[in-house]
């Protein structure tokens, strides 16, 4: 059993490597595009509080749609393949980052904003020197959540030809071969756990010492 597993692993090693890289690639692009869209959008929404409520409500509903359903729904629009995968994953990655950018900024204590305004900062200066730095920990948490979700959903993307580690799992399930299934599942899990950990660490480095909560240090 053991020997057989090792043999399968050896035989599929190059395949696994490709799938792994592909998985990272798809997830990375989706999250980066997600950040580029959602951070500015989140900032914009803090300036339009009335619209923000509605957008957040719609986003909340969108987030309850299961990933597999979402992939299926977009299939007729964008067809089978990686572009569809990246589009769907990007849509998903937007939600947590957008929400955290928005709440992160709106939760900045009004006292700081008053101090900034009172000292003569204009609204852009207040945004970049006070609001964004103070909201940064919350925004980074959103990016971390988003990345973990995306790595997860990217495995499901295999059913619409998205490639990645989901492909390996899928192949294993098809052949009812546990070794192959785990060859996809374990690296995917480790990738998600490691990403979460690394972004968590990076976030701590990026956050100024003054904002780190005690006990977490």
């Amino acid at each position, binding site marked *: 059993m053991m020997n057989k597993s090792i043999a399968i692993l050896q035989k599929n090693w190059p395949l696994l490597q490709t799938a792994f890289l592909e998985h990272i690639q798809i997830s990375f692009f989706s999250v980066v595009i997600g950040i580029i869209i959602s951070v500015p959008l989140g900032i914009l929404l803090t300036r339009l509080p009335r619209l923000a409520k509605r957008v957040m409500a719609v986003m909340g509903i969108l987030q309850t749609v299961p*990933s597999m359903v979402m992939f*299926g729904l977009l299939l007729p629009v964008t067809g089978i393949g990686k572009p569809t995968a990246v589009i769907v994953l990007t849509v998903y990655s937007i939600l947590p980052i957008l929400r955290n950018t928005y709440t992160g900024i709106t939760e900045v204590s009004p006292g700081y904003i008053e101090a900034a305004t009172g000292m003569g900062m204009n609204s852009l200066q207040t945004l970049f020197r006070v609001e964004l730095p103070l909201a940064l920990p919350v925004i980074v948490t959103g990016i971390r959540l988003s990345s973990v979700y995306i790595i997860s959903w990217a*495995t499901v993307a295999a059913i619409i030809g998205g490639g990645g580690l989901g492909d390996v*799992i899928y192949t294993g399930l098809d052949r009812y071969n546990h070794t192959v299934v785990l060859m996809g*599942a*374990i690296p995917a899990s480790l990738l998600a756990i490691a990403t979460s950990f690394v972004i968590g660490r990076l976030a701590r480095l990026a956050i100024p010492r003054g904002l780190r909560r005690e006990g977490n240090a």
Partner: protein
Amino acid sequence: MLELIQRAAVHLLISLSGVVLATVIGVVIGVILTRVPKLAGPVIGIVEVLQTIPSLAMLSILLVFFGLGNMTAVMAIFFYSLLPIVRNTYTGILALEPALLEAGRGMGMSSLQILFQVELPNAIPVIVSGLRISLITAYGIVTISVLVGGGGLGRYVYRGIQMADMAMLFTGAIPICLMAFLTDLLLNRLEQKLLHR
């Protein structure tokens, strides 16, 4: 039609089984953590890592232990739901006003009485919030569990994607989205009601 109703029922049943199991065990773990604060960090850490595992990967790993079928989905849901429920129970109880506990103690309640008459009732809104998140996640997992031989509405979605049959896809997708939407709505309401009692 009968098949659709049956599948919807199964979908709901699998989700509920996993979430209910997680609620029972999660609340107990959460309460234990409030009594043994030293354990809180590590235990919540482990439960957090569990939730980080991609859903399809979790299903696949559990498949090795539980085989093809609904049991694998129930277990996956169980593991995913632990985090929101354990964490919310724990923080819900910790966030209680010390004055409330003191009042309870001052009136001569035993620590079990305080738990059931003061701490848990006051933590319920937060626990319900955990339940809502868990249930909605569960519908998604059951959908995917079709890949590991699970039942429920995922069969329609999966077949719809495979055969590019939109009608088939919607047969599954609409009830799933409806369930998620209603769950969100109802439990949100319940949460608000409990909060403003």
